[in-house]
């Protein structure tokens, strides 16, 4: 067999040989066939690709961190310390992983709200929305489980509080707490468990859900918002993808700047018998939940305030997941805005206002 043999599409040489076996031209043809509508809201389409790019960075830097990380209470902190002080560029890899995690959650929120305001979740894209919201939950799970891994004071107490919240859930609370902690207390067992979730369980589930999400995006194409008439279309490949690439370069530049100028700190090693340090709070994307639990009184109408808070957050999450099944106008371009559209738009802005207000309250107090 010779590399010089002519491929199926007539191309010679190595490319022809590869083409004959891999059929890459089919993929290119698919990319060229896929059309992206052009209108004044087209910019929001780029945030999905941006999320995928940042997720890719998380996978790559996560694999690099695995080369030095040791998942046990005795060695976790020391291994991260070693990584940051002795391994060439170790501080940079960890900083990029931490900053990229935060940027990813931020970009996911932007992506989700843009889809929400464009009402792109409507028939037939309900499952695209559901898988997308699941992906956000999974990323929050990555954030929560990854936060503990350096085994520092802040992480230890954030996990203590976070798992305690899960423990307050009605009926399943006790099981959830023991399941998350691998016992009744946050110990080295919890660390091993969170490590397993962070590097094996969550990635496996994410791969499946992300695959389905991308398939659905591919199948249904981009949704055009209600009342917007596209001024034309361009091909996904190369036109849209090249613009995507520019966005990725900007994201990479921001990431490199943040990681280099504000390297992620390690703090002090966790000590289960030390008092919780002052000013302890979770990552910014969990702060609003933390604040809800903080402002509720001990008891409301005879029910524990904490329980009411957790139930309210759970119901809000379920409602958010079910949005496409509540707002049931079928999708289509050029429709006039209905009253329901206005109602959902107001609801979206209210949600953003509440999230921002609760978060700001914590940081300003």
């Amino acid at each position, binding site marked *: 067999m010779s590399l010089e043999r002519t491929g199926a599409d007539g191309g010679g040489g190595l490319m022809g040989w590869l083409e004959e076996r891999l059929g890459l031209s089919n993929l290119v043809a698919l990319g060229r066939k896929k059309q992206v509508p052009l209108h004044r809201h087209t910019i929001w389409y780029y945030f999905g690709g941006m999320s995928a790019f940042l997720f890719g960075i998380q996978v790559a830097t996560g694999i*690099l961190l695995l080369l030095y990380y040791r998942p046990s209470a005795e060695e976790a902190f020391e291994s991260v310390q070693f990584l940051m002080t*002795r391994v*060439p560029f170790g501080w940079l890899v960890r900083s990029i992983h931490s900053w990229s995690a935060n940027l990813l959650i931020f970009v996911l929120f932007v992506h989700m709200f843009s889809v929400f305001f464009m009402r792109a979740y409507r028939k037939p894209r309900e499952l695209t929305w559901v898988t997308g919201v699941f992906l956000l939950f999974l990323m929050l799970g990555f954030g929560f489980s990854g936060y503990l891994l350096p085994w520092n004071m802040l992480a230890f107490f954030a996990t203590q509080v976070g798992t305690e919240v899960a423990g307050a859930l009605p009926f399943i609370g006790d099981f959830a707490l023991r399941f998350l902690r691998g016992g009744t207390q946050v110990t080295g067992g919890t660390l091993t468990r969170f490590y397993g979730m962070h590097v094996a369980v969550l990635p496996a589930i994410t791969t499946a859900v992300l695959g389905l999400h991308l398939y659905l995006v591919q199948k249904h194409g981009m949704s055009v918002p209600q009342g917007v008439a596209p001024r034309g279309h361009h091909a996904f490949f190369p036109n849209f993808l090249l613009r995507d690439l520019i966005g990725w370069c900007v994201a990479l530049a921001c990431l490199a700047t943040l990681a280099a100028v504000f390297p992620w700190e390690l703090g002090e090693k966790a000590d289960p018998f030390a008092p919780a340090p002052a000013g302890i709070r979770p990552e910014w994307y969990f702060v609003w939940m933390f604040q809800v639990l903080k402002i509720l009184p001990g008891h409301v109408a005879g029910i524990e305030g904490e329980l009411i808070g957790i139930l309210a957050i759970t119901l809000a999450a379920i409602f958010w997941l079910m949005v496409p099944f509540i707002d049931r106008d079928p999708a289509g371009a050029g429709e006039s805005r209905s009253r329901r559209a206005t109602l959902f738009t107001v609801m979206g802005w209210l949600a953003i206002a509440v999230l921002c207000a609760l978060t700001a309250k914590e940081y300003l107090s």
Partner: protein
Amino acid sequence: MGESDATRRGFLNWFLGTSVGALCVSVFYPVARYISPPEIPEAETARVTAGHEEDLRPGEAKIFRFGHTPGILLRTPEGNHRAFSATCTHLNCTVQFRGDLKQIWCACHNGFYDTSGQVVSGPPPRPLEEYAVNVTGGEIIVSRK
């Protein structure tokens, strides 16, 4: 298309190409440095206490820690103590003393050394590294020669 357009295209191609090249270098250079573990200078152990005189009877041996590597201490039938590196010179397995054969044996590839550390049979290319043994106040002190 005029000549100036062709020059502009050429310049843009050159500019984009070098930018992509610079980006690749700025990503892959740190990654390449990162994946090669840093040299950790370890204080080389020169002397350890391998045990007490009464630990071994003539014809017995034991493994002891010599820094980060294992050593083997044996007492000859004549009652003398000898110590060697317990790392086989073939493929780094840890050797053991065979009382029945009165030889040091590597189980991995069936290499044999005599009680002076010299190769008797099998694949080991070199004798075992020998350490100096001093008995002081009943304690067996092993040091590098």
